[in-house]
C-alpha cells in the first residue's frame, strides 16, 4: 500500500530508553507502507533503537519479534509485510536466554 498513514508502534519496556521513554510511537509513514518503512521512520529519529531491532543489513534481529495485530510478521511477508491504516505494530523480544 502506498500513501500516507499514521501507524501506532508499541515499544517494549527494555527499548524505551532508546525512544525517549515513549511506550508508543505514533508515526506518519509515507510511500509504500511496510514494516520496513515504519522501522525506517523510527530509525531516522532513534538510531540506537534501530540498531537494537535490526542489524546493519536491515534484517530483523533473530530474537526480536514484530506483531501486526496478532500475527508475527515473520509468518506474513516479513518486514515487507504491508501495514494498513489503523493497524498496530507491537515489538516484543523473544522469550529466550539462560
Amino acid at each position: 500500500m502506498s500513501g500516507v498513514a499514521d501507524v501506532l508502534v508499541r515499544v517494549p519496556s527494555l527499548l524505551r530508553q532508546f525512544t525517549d521513554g515513549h511506550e508508543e510511537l505514533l508515526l506518519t509513514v509515507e510511500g509504500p507502507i511496510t514494516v520496513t518503512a515504519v522501522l525506517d521512520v523510527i530509525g531516522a529519529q532513534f538510531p540506537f533503537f534501530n540498531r537494537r531491532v535490526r542489524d546493519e543489513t536491515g534484517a530483523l534481529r533473530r530474537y526480536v519479534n514484530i506483531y501486526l495485530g496478532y500475527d508475527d510478521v515473520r509468518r506474513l511477508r516479513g518486514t515487507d509485510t504491508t501495514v494498513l491504516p489503523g493497524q498496530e505494530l507491537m515489538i516484543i523480544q523473544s522469550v529466550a536466554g539462560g
Partner: protein
Amino acid sequence: MANAASVLLAIGTKKGLWLGTSTDRTHWDLTGPHFLMQEIPSIGIDTRGDRTRILVGTRSEHWGTTVLHSDDFGASWIEPERAAISFPADTGAALERIWQLQPDAASQPGVVWAGCEPISVWKSTDGGEHFELNRGLWDHPHRTQWGAGYGGAAAHTVLPSPADAQTIHVAMSTGGVYRSTDGGDSWQARNQGISAYFMPDPLPEFGQCVHKIARDAGQPERLYAQNHHGVYRSDDSADSWSSIAGGLPADFGFVMLAHPCRSGTAWVIPIKADGERIPPDGKLAVHRTDDAGESWTRADSGLPQNEYNAVLRDAAATDTAELAGVYFGTRDGCVYASADEGSTFTEVASHLPDVLCVRAAVVTV
C-alpha cells in the same frame, strides 16, 4: 573510582561487566554488574595519553553488539550515535560479536584494533569510537576456506607491533595466524610448524586452530601461541614456529600471556585435551616460563583444589606493571589475581557468570 597508582581490573562475563580497583592487587573494590544481561566478550583498557579509557564490546542475544567506552572508570558509558562497528553494505555481512579490542602502541595514539565475528579486523583512529573494516583481510582469497571454531568464526587476536607500525599479526579459529607487513593492506598465512592434526594434511599453509597468540615484551619478532593442541614459539615474526610444549602437563588450552615488560616470560593455563576440557586431573594451575618456553614452572598456590571448568582465551591477562600482575577467570565465575607474576593467587570474586574476558592495567587519576 581508582586512586593514584591503582590497578584497574575489568571482568567481562556472560551477563555483565565488573570493575575492580586495588592498590595492592590483593584487596579489591568491585563495582557491577554494568550492562546486566549483556555479554562482555571483549575489553580494552587504553592508558595512552592523559586519560584511561575503558572500551567494551557488548553483545545481547536480543539487541545485537556494539562498542561503548568510559573515560571515568565506568561511572558513565558512551555509545556513539553512529555504530562503532558496522559492516559496509557491499559486504552483505552483519556484526555478530566483538572478540578483541586492542589499543595500539603508544607511538600510535588513537589507534585501536578490533577483531570480530564474522572473521574481520577493524581499525579505529579515534580511540575506539568508530572503526573501519580492514579490506585486505576481508577480501583475502583464503576466506572461503576459513572455518568456524566452536565459539564462532572470528579474528580473536590482533597484535600490532610496538616496534613497527606496519606489522600486525592476527589469529583466528580456524584459519591460523596471518601477518601483515604493510599496515594491513595485505596478509599472509604464517603457520609453518603449527600442527593441524585434525586435517588431512596436518601441516597446511593455513587452517590451524590457533587459540591465542602473544608478543614477547622485549623481542617484538618473538611470538608465543597456544594452539588447539600444541604450544609454540616463533623467533622470526611467525615465519616459523617450534614447539615449546615440553614440560607442560598438557598442550591444550586457550590462554597465552606474555609479560608486559620482560622478555622471555609467558604463562599458559593448560587444559587436559580437546576431548576432556578440564584442567589436568581437575587441578587448576598456571604454568610460567622465564626462558621463552624452554622450561615451565607450575603454580597453584591460592587456587582451588578442584576445578572442572576451563579458562577461555581472553579470560586471562596481565597488568602493565614491571612486577606483573596476572589475572584470570573461569567459566564458573571465579576470578583470581596474582601480585607476584603468577606464583601465588588470591580470589577476587566468585560465583559471577561465566568469565569471558579479563583485562588489567596500572592507572592513575
